[in-house]
């Protein structure tokens, strides 16, 4: 295994033969991690699906309490942040430090905007007594016995998503520091690529959450 260590890339770990193999391993690892995340969120989506099929009226009425405008804006914000993330990966692949910093900063900003809007939405829910628990006071016209289920799922699903966003923003901040130090070059930019995958995944989860939570029966009046 004696290699020309003098020419070995400083980021190449000892148990890999070359940077390509190391990158492929990292990428595969991240994809596998995302599969576990799909199963993780999947449990919640399964519970949602089952309860919605069983109690469509309760879910529709409860869903109408959510703010479609804020949710829609947030969707646009996240899609925008995926665009800036993709640009950051592109800049990392080219090794252009300035653009890396710009796009990472934009991604962080958009991520924070998303969380800010979410916080506004949550505070509205608190004010209107829509948080499940002893102070829950939503009286649906149809099937009030099951409306609390919708709100429980709303908070757990968007809360878990928000947690993932926070972690993502943290990761972006770390990448920003690394980019600042000039760590990402044409030869080595694995952390950016791999974090990009994670960021896109968190975005995609929201793309599913938005219609499922906010857009139930919005095409017409609730069926009587």
């Amino acid at each position: 295994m004696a290699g020309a260590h003098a020419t070995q890339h400083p980021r190449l770990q000892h148990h890999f033969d070359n940077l390509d193999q190391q990158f492929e391993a990292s990428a595969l690892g991240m994809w596998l991690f995302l599969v576990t995340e799909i199963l993780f969120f999947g449990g919640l989506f399964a519970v949602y699906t089952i309860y919605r099929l069983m109690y469509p009226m309760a879910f529709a009425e409860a869903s109408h309490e959510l703010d479609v405008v804020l949710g829609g804006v947030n969707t646009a914000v996240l899609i925008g942040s995926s665009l800036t993330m993709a640009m950051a990966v592109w800049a990392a692949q080219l090794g252009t430090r300035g653009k890396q910093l710009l796009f990472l900063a934009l991604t962080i900003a958009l991520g924070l905007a998303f969380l800010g809007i979410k916080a506004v939405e949550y505070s509205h829910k608190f004010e209107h007594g829509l948080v499940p628990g002893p102070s829950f006071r939503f009286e649906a016209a149809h099937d009030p016995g099951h409306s609390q289920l919708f709100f429980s799922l709303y908070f757990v699903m968007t809360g878990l998503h928000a947690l993932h966003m926070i972690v993502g923003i943290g990761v972006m901040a770390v990448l920003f520091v690394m980019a600042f130090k000039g760590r990402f070059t044409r030869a080595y930019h694995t952390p950016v690529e791999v974090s990009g995958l994670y960021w896109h995944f968190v975005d995609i989860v929201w793309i599913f959450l938005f219609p499922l939570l906010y857009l139930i029966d919005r095409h017409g009046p609730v069926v009587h």
Partner: protein
Amino acid sequence: MAPQVDALYFFLVALTAFFTLLISGLVVYFAIRYRRRSADETGVPIHGNLKLEITWTVIPFVIVLFIFGWSAKLFYTMARPPAETLDVYVVGKQWMWKFQHPDGHAEVNELHVPVGTSVKLTMTSQDVIHNVYIPDFRVKADVLPGRYTHLWFKATTPGRYRLFCAEYCGTDHSGMGGWVVVMERAEYQQWLAGGAGQGTMAQTGEKLFKDLACVTCHKEDTTGRGPTLIGLYGKAVTLDTGDAVEADEAYLRESIVNPRARMVTGFQPIMPTFQGLVSEEGLLQLIEYIKTLKAEPSNATGKK
């Protein structure tokens, strides 16, 4: 049904014994016959044998299909009570069983039934998940909160048979046992005649119906604010969504504790919930009462 379950069970015992002895025997034989005889001896390299693989895949597959078919058929009969049954209502709670007979007898932890009669238990829990298990009858079913579950049996020999709770339910789970007392018909009639000490379930249900003022909205005709309950049980009901449901026990229970879950078409959503205001026994009594409401104005004692 119990002997049929046993037949399958002991067939499986024989199957298990057969294959265990066959394969262990073969392994022991090979171990002795092919034991290493010199320090650097190696085995004969045999890659495999496709025919053998197929054989010992297909044969077990056929065997398990046979077992599946046999057990599924038996299970189907166990899961479908006969049309005519003696109904008993069961409410389980931490850590005891309450049995209600339609004629009003209420028992705790002990259930009297006549021999040779199909008995159907309709069960619910007041708190956590329990389970009724009568080993001698080879029957078992979970008892759930917020739902009715069923099991049925037909005892063939008089005697006292153990009843267990078989779903862990907290501190006194192992103390939540009881007895099923199977009596000769004559004895059972005597026991019935001994008097329940209270009215029939339907009568108690009728009293509840009046006490809770249900009659304010649910009249004997269609002039009330709520639909009439005459002839309701077992009927197909059209909901405001356009779907139709059967007005069975589950629907009736739900309509009392969560009235706006499935609303009858043509009525306003104004019925208040009675969750917490009626016990599970009370709900069963109300349902028994509703069952007696036939098209005739007077109510019979309602034995189906």
